[in-house]
C-alpha cells in the first residue's frame, strides 16, 4: 500500500493505465505532467518484457494447470493479460490494447467453436515467438500496434485470422458475398452507424470477396495454422461504388480490376475509411468516453480537435493519444473520477492499491465475469458499452464481493502496512490511512461517519493484531466496495 498526495499523477495513471503501484507513483511522481505523458506514449523506452516476470516472487501469481500455456489455453491467456495490467511498466500499451480489444471486439467462443479450444486461444492470444507456426494472435497484433497507425491496424484486423472467423470473412466468396465484416467495418470500426447505406454494405462485402484463410505448415511439428490469403478465384472483380469518397480526389468508385489485382480493392477501401472525416470523429468521440469523461454529452470541441490531429498526422495514434492525454478536457476538475471503472480496471486498481502478494489473478476471473466482463469474450462485436450499465445490482454485489475476497486474502499484508504506517492507534488513524491508500472519489462526511461507526461497532478500540486484522480487512472491503471507488 502506498500513500501519495499527487492527485494529478494518480488521475493520469487511472486513465492511461490501471491505477498505480507504489513504484509507479514514485516513478511518475518525479515527473511533470508533460514528462509523464511523454513517457507513457513513448513506452518503447521501457525495454523490460513484462511477460518474463510471470512466476517470479514478489509479483501477483498465476495459477497453472500443468504447464502455463497462454498461447493455447484461454484461461491462461486471460491470466497473462491481467498479470500484464498489474505489472507492466508500459501502462498505456496495455490500456490501448484494451481499447482496441473493445473496438474490434472479437469473441473467443466463436473462434473456439469453429476451430477448437486450443486454436481459439492461439488466434486470440499467442505470441509469434512462442507459437510453432509463428501465429500472432489478435491481442498481440493490437498490443504491437497499440499506438500505431490506425490504417495499418484496420488492414491488420481485416487480415486477422480470429477476425476472419469471427465476422465470417473466411467464407466471403464471389458468387455469394458475405456482408458481416463489410457492414461492421463501417458501422463499428470506422465511420459509425448512419454514415453508410445498405448498398454500401453490399459493395463492401464484394470488396472483401476472396479475403479468406489458408492452412499452412504441418501437423507433425505443430506449425500447421490458418492465415490470411487473398483467394483471387473468389474475388468479384466488377467496380464498387460507395455513397462516400474512397479516394483523395473524391471518387466514390473502386474500379473494376482483374482478379489477380483485386486485393487492391480492400486496401483502397480501408485507405478510404481511414481517411474519412467521420472515422476521425467516431474515434475521437470513443477516445473521449474511454480516456476523458463519460458524464454528459461528448465534448464537441475535443472531438473536432482530436479528429483534426488524427487526420493531420495521417492516422498516427501516438500523436492522437499525446493530444488526448494533454487535453484541457482531461485536466478539467470535472473530469476527475468522471468515468465508471470497468471491471478489470476496478479489479486491477484494487490489487495495486491493496496488495497482490499471495493473490492469483486466476481468482479474479469468476468475479470479473460476475461483474459483467470476460476478457476475450465481449458481449458482441460492438464491445462493452460505456455508461452505467456496468452497475446492475448483481454486478455491484460482485464488486462488493470481490473487495471482500481481496480484503480477506490481503488481511495480513494490510495489517502489516497499517502497523508500519503507525495507523493502528485509533479508528481515526486507521480510517485516515486506508481511505487515502485506496484513493477513491472523495467520500462524503456522512460516509466517513458510517465507516468510523463501523470501526467502533463491535467493541472498544485496542489496536490489537486481531482487531487490526479484522477491522482493516473490513474497512478495505467497505471502501473498495463503495460506490465512490467504482469511478476513476
Amino acid at each position, binding site marked *: 500500500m502506498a500513500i501519495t498526495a499527487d492527485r494529478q499523477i494518480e488521475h493520469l495513471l487511472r486513465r492511461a493505465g490501471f491505477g498505480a503501484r507504489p513504484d509507479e507513483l514514485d516513478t511518475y511522481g518525479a515527473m511533470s505532467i508533460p514528462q509523464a505523458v511523454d513517457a507513457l506514449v513513448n513506452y518503447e523506452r521501457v525495454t523490460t518484457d513484462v511477460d518474463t516476470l510471470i512466476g517470479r516472487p514478489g509479483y501477483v501469481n498465476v495459477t497453472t494447470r500443468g504447464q502455463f500455456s497462454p498461447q493455447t489455453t484461454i484461461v491462461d491467456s486471460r491470466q497473462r493479460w491481467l498479470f500484464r495490467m498489474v505489472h507492466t511498466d508500459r501502462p498505456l500499451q496495455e490500456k490501448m490494447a484494451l481499447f482496441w480489444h473493445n473496438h474490434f471486439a472479437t469473441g473467443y467462443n466463436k473462434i473456439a467453436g469453429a476451430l477448437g479450444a486450443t486454436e481459439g486461444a492461439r488466434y486470440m492470444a499467442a505470441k509469434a515467438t512462442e507459437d510453432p507456426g509463428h501465429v500472432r494472435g489478435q491481442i498481440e497484433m493490437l498490443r504491437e500496434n497499440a499506438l500505431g497507425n490506425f490504417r495499418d491496424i484496420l488492414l491488420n484486423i481485416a487480415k486477422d485470422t480470429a477476425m476472419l472467423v469471427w465476422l465470417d470473412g473466411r*467464407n466471403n466468396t464471389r458468387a455469394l458475398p*458475405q456482408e458481416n465484416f463489410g457492414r461492421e467495418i463501417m458501422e463499428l470500426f470506422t465511420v459509425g*452507424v448512419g454514415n453508410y447505406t445498405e448498398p454500401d454494405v453490399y459493395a463492401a462485402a464484394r470488396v472483401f470477396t476472396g479475403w479468406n484463410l489458408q492452412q499452412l505448415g504441418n501437423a507433425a511439428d505443430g506449425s500447421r495454422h490458418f492465415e490470411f490469403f487473398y483467394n483471387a478465384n473468389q474475388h468479384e472483380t466488377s467496380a464498387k461504388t460507395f455513397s462516400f469518397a474512397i479516394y483523395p480526389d473524391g471518387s466514390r468508385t473502386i474500379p473494376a480490376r482483374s482478379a489477380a489485382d483485386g486485393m487492391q480493392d480492400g486496401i483502397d477501401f480501408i485507405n478510404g475509411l481511414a481517411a474519412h472525416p467521420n472515422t476521425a470523429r467516431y474515434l475521437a468521440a470513443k477516445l473521449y468516453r474511454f480516456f476523458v469523461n463519460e458524464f454528459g454529452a461528448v465534448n464537441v470541441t475535443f472531438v473536432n480537435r482530436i479528429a483534426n490531429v488524427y487526420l493531420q498526422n495521417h492516422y498516427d495514434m501516438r500523436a492522437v493519444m499525446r493530444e488526448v492525454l494533454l487535453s484541457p478536457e482531461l485536466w478539467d476538475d470535472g473530469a476527475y473520477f468522471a468515468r465508471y471503472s470497468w471491471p478489470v480496471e476496478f479489479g486491477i486498481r484494487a490489487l495495486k492499491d491493496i496488495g497482490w502478494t499471495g493473490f492469483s489473478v486466476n481468482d479474479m476471473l469468476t468475479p470479473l465475469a460476475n461483474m459483467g466482463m470476460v476478457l476475450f469474450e465481449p458481449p*458482441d462485436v460492438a464491445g462493452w458499452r460505456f455508461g452505467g450499465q456496468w452497475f446492475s445490482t*448483481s454486478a455491484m454485489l460482485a464488486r462488493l464481493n470481490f473487495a471482500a475476497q481481496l480484503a480477506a486474502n490481503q488481511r495480513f499484508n494490510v495489517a502489516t502496512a497499517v502497523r508500519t504506517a503507525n495507523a493502528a492507534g485509533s479508528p481515526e488513524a486507521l480510517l485516515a490511512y486506508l481511505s487515502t491508500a485506496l484513493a477513491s472519489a472523495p467520500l462524503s462526511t456522512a460516509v466517513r461517519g458510517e465507516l468510523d461507526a463501523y470501526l467502533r461497532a463491535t467493541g472498544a478500540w485496542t489496536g490489537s493484531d486481531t482487531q487490526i486484522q479484522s477491522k482493516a480487512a473490513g474497512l478495505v472491503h467497505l471502501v473498495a466496495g463503495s460506490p465512490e471507488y467504482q469511478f476513476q
Partner: protein
Amino acid sequence: MNVTRRQFVKGGVAAFTVTFAAPEFLSDLARAQGAHTRNFVVLYLGGGNDALSMLVPYNDPFYYSRRPTLAVPAGQVLQIGRDSSNVPLGLHPRLTGLRTIFDAGRLALIQRTGYENQSRSHFFGTDIWSTADPNNSQEFGWLGRYLDALPQPVNPLVGWNTTSALPHVLSGQTAVPAIASPSGYSFASPNSGAEATAERNAALRIASHVPVDRPELAFVYGSAQEALATLDRVATVATYAPTLTYPNTGLGQALRAVAGAMVRGIGTRVFYVTTGGFDTHAGQQVNATNGAYYNLMATLNDALLAFYNDLRAQGLFEDTLVLSFSEFGRRISENGSQGTDHGAASVMIAMGGRVNGGIYGTAPNLRIDPSNPTLENASGDVHWETDFRSVYAQVIDAWLGANSAQLLNGNFRKPGLTFV
C-alpha cells in the same frame, strides 16, 4: 359458496389452482391477496432470428430455390395449418414442444413484424425494438417506461433481469435488479460473526447516503442500495425446487429462476430473459441434428416447454405471458457460407395461459419481383406487415393494464391483433 369462501381464507388462495374456467371472483380475490399477479416475461432472441427457418412457408417454391442448402424440407416441418392468406405453415422440426403448446391454444405466432426502413444493425436495431421508437434509439426502454409509470414507490423487485447487464428494454428511472443466479446473489465478508454483520450493516447505511447532486454517483448508490435491500427475498427464490428438470442452458436456468420468483411471490411483474447465437451468417445448419440453428431451436423449445409445464404444475400459467422479439429477421436468400445475412421483418411469439393461440398476420411471398408487396430491398428481405409497436400495444393494454398510446407516444392499436 360460503363454505368455499371460509376454506379460501383458511387454506390461503394460493393453495388452489386458478384456472381459466374459474369464476371471476376467485381470481380477483387471489389477486387482491397478492397471490396472483400478472407476470410478463420478455424474451430476446439475440442476433436476428431467421423467421423463415422457424416458421416455414413450406409450399413456397421460392423458399426452396432461394435457400438450396438451408430450406427445411416440406416433409419435415411440423404443420400447424394455414394463415389468413391461406398459406400453409410449419414450425421448425425441433419445435415439438412449441407445437404442443400451439395445439393447446396457448401459443401465438405473429408474422412479419417490423417497421419501415428497418435497421439491419444489431445494435441500432436492438435499441429501436427496446425503445419502441424507430426515431429515437436512445430514450428509455418501453418496459422501463412502463415500470416508471407504476404507482410509486415500487417494490425494488418489480422487475427482474436475468442477465448481468441491464438490457435497454428495461432501462428507466426504476432500477431493475440483475439477478443472473439467485444462489450467487449474496453478500460476502472477509470476517465472520458479529464483524461480518457490522460490515453488512455499514454497507447498508453507506448505500443510504445517496448524493442528490451527482447523478452518476447516485446511480451507483442506487444499485448498491437495491442489491442490499433485495438479498433476503432473492435468497428465498434460490430455494425453489421445481418438480421437473429445466434444461441446463442459460435460457433454461433463467426461466427456472423466473418460475421460482413467481412461486415465491416476491412481487416481480416483469422479467427479462434472453438466448443468443441467432446471428447465423455462416454454417447455419438448419436441418442437421445439432447444427447451429437446429440447436438454437432446441434451446428455445426445451426451455419454454419446461417453463410451460412447470407453471401449469404451479397453477401460474394463467397469470403469465411470454413475448419474444429479435432485432431483425434475415435475408431471404442464403449467402455463400450456408448462412443468412441481416434482413428485415421477423416473427414474434407469444405464449401464456390467456393467449389466444394461432397464426397472426400473413406469410411473405418469396418470389423475386419488384411488384411483390410482401418483400422489400429488391426482394431481398421480408417487408413488415404488423408494426412491432402494435404487438407491444396489445400487451400493454390487454395484459399490463396500462395505456399503450401514452407509453408508446402514439396509437398503434391494431384491430384483430388480439393474441392476448
